[in-house]
């Protein structure tokens, strides 16, 4: 754990306002540590969940956006479920990830956003997830061409992967969702 002092007066006010509007009350945290103790991925984090919440209350956006934690969080919601003050910690992680992408911060775990991107490209294109296309997109983006090759082949031979994508009729509606409809109100 980093023991350097973090000045609160330099905290990012815009970030704090965004959390407030979204109803994520990070100031309600009294550092009980239930979030960190129940987190299934905590062993792999560079910032523990309770540290994320405290740093967020300082408005320490930069430290948070550069962390591995925001990308390794699996959105299992154990932290937010058990928080005695009902702080929407999983929602906080969502805000941090989307901010990091928007601000083009180099992700500390680059493969994770690559997978999200490949998944969402597939949804944007077909309206539904096309697993083979999504996987191929991820493999190309990440350069991880050999990982899970055996598993992929096994799934393929078992007929678990659909060969032909099935697009929906409302593709135009779905593309509009991705085009930023309503983004002018972005909080």
């Amino acid at each position, binding site marked *: 754990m980093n023991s350097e002092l973090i000045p609160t007066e330099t905290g990012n006010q815009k970030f704090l306002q965004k959390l407030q509007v979204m109803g994520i009350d990070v100031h309600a945290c009294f550092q009980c540590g239930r979030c960190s103790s129940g987190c299934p991925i905590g062993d792999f984090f560079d910032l523990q969940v309770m540290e994320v919440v405290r740093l967020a209350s300082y408005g320490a956006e930069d430290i948070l956006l550069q962390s591995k934690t925001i990308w390794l969080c*699996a959105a299992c919601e154990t932290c937010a479920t058990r928080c005695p003050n009902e702080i929407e910690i999983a929602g906080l992680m969502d805000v941090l990830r989307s901010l990091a992408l928007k601000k083009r911060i180099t992700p500390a775990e680059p493969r*994770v956003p690559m997978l999200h991107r490949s998944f969402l490209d597939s949804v944007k294109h077909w309206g539904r997830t096309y697993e083979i296309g999504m996987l191929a997109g991820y493999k190309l983006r990440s350069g991880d061409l050999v990982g*899970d090759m055996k598993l992929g082949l096994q799934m393929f031979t*078992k007929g678990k992967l659909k060969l032909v994508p099935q697009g929906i009729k409302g593709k135009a509606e779905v593309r509009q*969702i991705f085009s930023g409809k*309503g983004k002018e109100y972005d909080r």
Partner: protein
Amino acid sequence: MKLAYYPGCSLEGSARDYDHSVRQLCRDMGIWLVEIPDWNCCGASSAHMTDHEIGMRLPIRNLMLAQQVGLDILVPCAACFQRLKAADQALRADPGYWDVKDYSSPPAIVHISSLLARDDILARIREKVSAPLQDLTLACYYGCLSLRNPRVTGAADWETPTTLERIVGAVGAEPVSWSHRTECCSGSLTLTRPDIAVRLVGDIVRAARRAGAKAIVTDCPMCQANVESRQLDLGQTEPGLPVFFATELVVAAISGSYPAAQQKAHLIDPALLNRFFSQAAPAGEGPR
């Protein structure tokens, strides 16, 4: 009973067998399913984790389509269920914000296990069982998203759920008491950080073994795929624990058969089920 049906993308792809078992079981139970016409992906974790607007508007489109069907929605996938519930909550609070004019008759969103664990449905299952899974010890595994966050899912017993135990109990199986029922398997990281998934799946499988389970049963397609596939990387000395869908087991117990096509859907050999079904009976014993 008539319900709108939202299968979700997994059930069209890698979990197609889950879709078949849900549809078959609903036929057995006299439940009519009307698939929501032209449904789209709910966005799963990837959408809400990276873009709030997209994460809401994708499931909202489905809710609008379901409203036209005018029936409550049955959802077999835990992730789809949670995303539809989140969108429903946002719409109930402020439809105008999401450019929705009328959300006056919101459909109820029902996860498969809460439907099947209803007393009347359980009674119907018990009545119809032809090949009980007598004494089959099962670790009921819920994972995350049908339960958490309860402020979204509306789950009543999010730390100590019992729906799966009641369902498999109705077909004669014996649910074990164990520690990892609602732990995360890190399905969303399984491709990008397989090392994490291997650790978490290993913990889950070892806990199930300690409790004496011979197999795991779930109602989440991501858990099913992840907990079976990552066991292949554990270097286990004993055969792995197959992960069944609850619906798969109920259909088998009702029909009295567990077809080869269904067995093939597993990455871990589910042969331990064969002893319950007549076609797998040893020669000379004849069908039960």
